[in-house]
């Protein structure tokens, strides 16, 4: 392999495999492919984003050596930042909803990050609110802020999207999970340049009632980097549908995906139903490992077993 010897783990971020999923395509004329982002060094697509945000802040001089980082995250971005922070010498505080799986919390600690809990019932929006408050209060902190940092979509424009465009002669549909909007904006834009008619589809989680306890709808949060007008479709996927997608992925193709990967597969199959033929690319953000402690794998009522947690 070309990259058998790497100077640093950070040199192994990106260039993930793209694999065909022939047993998951609902129609013979539709070819389904999966970009396996779980094969990044910490196991998720967020390695691309964390590396890009820190490199760009170092290059611009905003981030001085040894300065403490703070970031709101539902898990993956924090774990990726923890790796980059460790190798580049920054202490890191992650603001994490109290309602995430134990694996994410434990991984963050093992990588050396400090954790501040945000209220479980406010979901990820509560983590954003609290991190913004803490950063405002202490100017010594540096917040990469994946939700508003252009390095996030740029990492997907130059990486994820470019890699897909290079690997395939044709892409009709791109499906990715919606969290910050970084993958959809960046990879979507890059693929539109290569394939002007590509349909960019967001799979969006339907959160459980227990993690939607905002005081008012005005506490809703749209990441500054997300421009919904650049999406062609935005499909809501329930926790139960996401789990059925990840079971299909595992049972038919042997791909062990996380909850958002299941949602992406569900949305991709829904879109593929309307096509006679074409190429559909699914971006699978992480593997299933960080969700093994969750009760949904053998729950009778999947939805009830998931409503108290934030899944992506």
């Amino acid at each position, binding site marked *: 392999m070309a990259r058998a010897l790497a100077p640093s783990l950070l040199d192994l971020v990106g260039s993930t495999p793209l694999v065909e999923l022939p047993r998951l395509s609902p129609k013979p004329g539709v070819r389904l492919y999966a970009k396996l982002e779980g094969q990044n060094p910490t196991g998720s697509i967020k390695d691309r984003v964390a590396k890009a945000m820190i490199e760009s802040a170092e290059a611009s001089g905003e981030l001085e050596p040894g300065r403490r980082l703070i970031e709101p995250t539902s898990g993956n971005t924090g774990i990726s930042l923890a790796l980059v922070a460790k190798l580049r010498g920054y202490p890191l505080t992650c603001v994490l909803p109290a309602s995430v799986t134990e694996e994410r919390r434990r991984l963050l600690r093992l990588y050396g990050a400090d954790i501040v809990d945000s209220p479980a019932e406010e979901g990820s929006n509560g983590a954003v609110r609290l991190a913004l408050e803490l950063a405002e209060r202490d100017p010594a902190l540096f917040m990469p802020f994946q939700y508003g940092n252009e390095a996030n979509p740029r990492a997907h424009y130059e990486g994820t999207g470019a890699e897909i465009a290079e690997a395939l002669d044709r892409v009709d549909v791109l499906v990715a999970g919606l969290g910050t909007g970084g993958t959809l904006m960046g990879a979507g834009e890059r693929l539109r340049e290569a394939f002007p008619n590509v349909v960019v589809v967001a799979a969006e989680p339907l959160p459980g009632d227990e993690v939607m306890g905002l005081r008012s709808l005005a506490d*809703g949060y749209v990441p500054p980097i997300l421009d919904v*007008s650049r999406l062609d479709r935005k499909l809501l996927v329930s926790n139960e549908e996401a789990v059925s997608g990840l079971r299909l992925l595992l049972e038919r193709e042997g791909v062990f995906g996380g909850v958002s990967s299941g949602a992406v597969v569900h949305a991709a199959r829904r879109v593929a139903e309307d096509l006679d033929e074409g190429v559909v690319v699914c971006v699978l953000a992480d593997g299933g490992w960080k969700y093994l402690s969750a009760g949904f794998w053998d729950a009778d009522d999947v939805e009830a077993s998931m409503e108290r947690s934030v899944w992506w």
Partner: protein
Amino acid sequence: MAAVRIPPTLRAEVGGARQLEAHGETVADVLEDLVSRHPALAPQLLDDGELAPFVNVFVDGEDIRTLDGTETPVRNGDNLILLPAMAGG
């Protein structure tokens, strides 16, 4: 007639209901019907008469902002879901 799922944040405004029935041929009509019966919803859902930016409305699982906005047609038996915009990552 459409079924409208009410998020936890708005249940106090509609007497605790998780789901309500509403009439209308477009999303705008359905929201108007809801607001006429539950006026406390208006300041949460609407901003200068338009759908507030932090409110997402889904018709059969698809965001109306990638369809025809509040002019998106609603068929008899459709399910509507109101949600606050939520981040992830």
